[in-house]
């Protein structure tokens, strides 16, 4: 009970608005600068929890990153750490 009360009481975590408020309707795999904001420094795709995108946008971004990887625009992995 106490736990639940604490959860309810906590401020509802500021919702980071989707970065797509930049006026981007569809994600293009050629826009590497944008896609780089959705990958970690290891080259992994960031989770929805982190990106704050909608499901649709997250899928679009994920496929765009994957195509960009195939075309050697983004790394599959990068050991630079």
């Amino acid at each position: 009970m106490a736990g639940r009360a604490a959860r309810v009481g906590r401020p509802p975590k500021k919702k980071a608005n989707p970065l797509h408020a930049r006026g981007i309707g569809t994600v293009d795999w050629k826009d590497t600068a944008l896609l780089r904001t959705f990958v970690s420094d290891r080259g992994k795709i960031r989770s929805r929890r982190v990106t704050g995108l909608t499901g649709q946008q997250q899928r679009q971004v994920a496929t765009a990153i994957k195509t960009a990887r195939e075309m050697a625009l983004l790394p599959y992995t990068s050991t630079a750490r």
Partner: protein
Amino acid sequence: MRHYEMVVILEPSLDERTVAPSLETFLNVIRTDGGTVENVEVWGRRRLAYEIEKNAEGIYAVLDVNCEPATIKEMDRQLALNESVLRTKVMRRDPNAGARRGKAGAS
């Protein structure tokens, strides 16, 4: 007829000026089969995120093409046979994506 976007990565040892003419020979495959070539964009030499066939760089070319599925398949096959082509990728794009893409580029 469908709209395709095709990306070709060529060997960096080629002269960038010869890229467009040599792509033309491949694009003739599409033209003779009744397709149209909308746009040919040569990005030039770019660093690759990882090595492809021991090359750290590649010459990128993006082609926008309208043609039949069999035609693009044949062109892709011919490109893949060419030694100086490191990689190709054919993608389908929905036709109104272009407008939105333009908007994205402006912002």
